[in-house]
C-alpha cells in the first residue's frame, strides 16, 4: 500500500503516457495488415504491401503532396511575418502594444469552425472562388499567432545584458543583432516554424471550409476515405509522420541537452 502511494504519480503518469501513445501504436501495427475488403479494422494477416506501394490508393500521394506544398509555403510565410511581429512586441514599447497582443491572441481563442466559416463568408461576399490560394491564406492566418507566441517567449527569456555586452565590445546595433540576438532567438524561430508546419499539415476543419473539390489535402483525403473505409496506405503515411516526428524532435532534444551539458 505504501509502495503504491509512493509511486502513485509515476504509475498514473505512465498510464496516461500509454493512453497518448496507444493510437499511434495501433496505426503502426495495422499498417502491416492485409485487410479483406475495404475495412482495415480487424486484423487479418501480416503484409508489407502497403509499405512497398504507399501510393497505391488513387489520390493519396497527390493529397500528401498538396499538403506538403501548402504546409511549407504557409509555415515559411507565417514564420517570417510572425517573427517580425514577435520582435516588435518583445523589443519595443509603442502605442497600441496591448491591442496588438489581444489581436494576436484572438485567432488562438477562436474555434476553428468559426474561423473557417467567417473566412468563407468573406470569400463568398467578395465572389472569390475557393482553392489552393484560399487554403494558403487561411493557413498563414491561423499559424501566425502560434509563431508570434513561440518566438516572443524565446525573446523574453533572453538576457538583455548579452546585447549590452556586444555594444560594449563596439558592435553596431546591426552587428549585435546579427551575431548575438538572432542566433539566440533562432531555436524559437525554428520551433515556431515547425509548429506552424504541423498545424497546417494536419488541419481539416478550416481547410474544408476554404477548399474546392479539386484541392484535396491529406486530411481531406482521409475524411473522404473514412466514409467508405480507409486504405492501409493511410496507416503507412501516418506511421511515417509519427516516426519522423519522434526522430526529428528527439534529435533536436538530444542536441539541445548535449549543448547544455557541454556548457555546464
Amino acid at each position, binding site marked *: 500500500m505504501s509502495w503504491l502511494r509512493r509511486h*502513485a504519480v509515476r504509475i498514473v503518469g505512465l498510464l496516461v503516457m500509454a493512453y497518448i501513445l496507444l493510437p499511434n501504436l495501433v496505426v503502426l501495427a495495422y499498417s502491416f495488415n492485409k485487410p479483406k475488403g475495404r475495412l482495415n479494422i480487424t486484423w487479418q494477416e501480416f503484409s508489407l504491401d502497403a509499405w512497398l506501394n504507399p501510393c497505391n490508393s488513387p489520390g493519396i500521394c497527390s493529397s500528401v503532396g498538396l499538403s506538403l506544398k501548402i504546409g511549407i509555403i504557409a509555415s515559411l510565410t507565417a514564420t517570417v511575418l510572425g517573427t517580425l511581429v514577435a520582435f516588435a512586441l518583445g523589443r519595443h514599447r509603442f502605442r497600441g502594444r496591448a491591442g496588438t497582443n489581444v489581436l494576436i491572441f484572438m485567432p488562438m481563442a477562436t474555434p476553428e469552425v468559426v474561423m473557417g466559416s467567417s473566412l468563407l463568408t468573406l470569400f463568398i461576399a467578395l465572389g472569390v472562388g475557393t482553392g489552393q490560394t484560399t487554403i494558403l491564406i487561411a493557413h498563414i492566418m491561423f499559424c501566425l499567432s502560434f509563431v508570434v507566441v513561440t518566438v516572443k517567449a524565446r525573446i523574453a527569456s533572453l538576457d538583455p545584458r548579452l546585447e549590452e555586452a556586444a555594444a560594449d565590445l563596439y558592435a553596431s546595433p546591426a552587428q549585435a543583432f546579427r551575431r548575438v540576438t538572432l542566433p539566440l532567438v533562432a531555436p524559437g524561430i525554428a520551433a515556431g516554424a515547425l509548429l506552424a508546419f504541423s498545424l497546417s499539415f494536419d488541419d481539416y*476543419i478550416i481547410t474544408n471550409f476554404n477548399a474546392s473539390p479539386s484541392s484535396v489535402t491529406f486530411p481531406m483525403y482521409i475524411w473522404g476515405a473514412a466514409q467508405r473505409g480507409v486504405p492501409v496506405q493511410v496507416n503507412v503515411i501516418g506511421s511515417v509522420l509519427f516516426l519522423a516526428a519522434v526522430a526529428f524532435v528527439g534529435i533536436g532534444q538530444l542536441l539541445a541537452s548535449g549543448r547544455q551539458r557541454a556548457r555546464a
Partner: protein
Amino acid sequence: MSDAAVAVPPPRRRVRRNWVPYALLAPGLLWLVVFFVVPTVSLVSQSLQTGDVFNGYTLTWNVQTYVDALGTYWPQLLRSLVYAGLATVFTLLLGYPLAWFIAHRSGRLKNVLLVLVIAPFFTSFLIRTLAWQTILGNGGLLETTMGALHLTWLLHGFESFLGLVNLGTGNQLLYTPFAVVAGLTYNFLPFMVLPLYANIERLDLRLVEAASDLYATPASAFRRVIWPLSLPGVVAGTLLTFIPATGDYINSVLLGSTQTVMIGQVIDSQFLRVLNYPLAAALSVALMALIITFVTVYVRRAGTEELV
C-alpha cells in the same frame, strides 16, 4: 497566453526611431486584420442578411435568424459545451499527474517523455481518431484483449454503467457519448499537458517541504500551496482545451452517432451542404459569443478568488 510569460524587461535605451516597431508589425497585423478581423465582421453581417444563394443577399438586420437558429439547434450547442467541459475536466485530471511526473519524477527520461507528448501533434489528428474506432469497436482491440484476459465482464459492467449515466447505450463503447468525450479528451490532452508542464516545472519543491515542516498533510500542502501556484498553468491549459474542443466535430462525427451531433457539425453542413449561409453564420456567431462569455467569467473567477 498569460502575461506572466510575456513579462518583457523594458528596453534600457529609449528607442528613438519610433517607426521601427510599426514597420515590423505592419505585414503580420495587416494579414490578421484582412483575413481575421474583416471576415469576423463579414460573418456577423452575413448572419443578419436575408436572401438566398442564387439571388444574392441583402443586409436587413434580420434578427429572426438568431431566434430560429437557437430555437432549433440549442441542444447541439448545449451538448458541445457539456462535452467540451467534460473533456476539459478529464484532460486536467489526466494531464496534471502526467505533467508532474514529467517535470519532477521522470529523471533522465524527461526529454524522451516530452518528445512523446509532442510527437502526436505531428501525426494526423484524423488518423489517430480513426484508430480509436479500431480500439473501441465491437470485436475491436479492447474487446479482444479483455476477452483474452477473461475480463469481458468488466467491460460489459462498464458499458452498463455508461448506459446508467446516460453516456452510452449499454452494449457498446464506440458511437456513444462516452467515445466522443474520450476522443476529445485524448486529442486535446497535449494542449493541457504542455502549459501545465511549463508551469509545474518552475515550481520550487522546497515549498512542499516547508509546508510539511509546518505540519501540513500532503493533501493540504497540495490544496494550499501547490494548486494555487499552478493556477496560471491550469487556466492556460483549460482554455486551450475547452475553446477548440467546443468547436470540434471530428470526434463527434467519427466516434459518435446521430445522438451526439455537436454544433460544429451543424455549422459545417448548413454552410457547405444546405447552403443556408445566414443560419450557419448566426450559429457561428452564437458559438463565439457563448465561448467569450464563458471564458470571461472563468478568467475573472480564477483571477480574483483563487489567485489572491
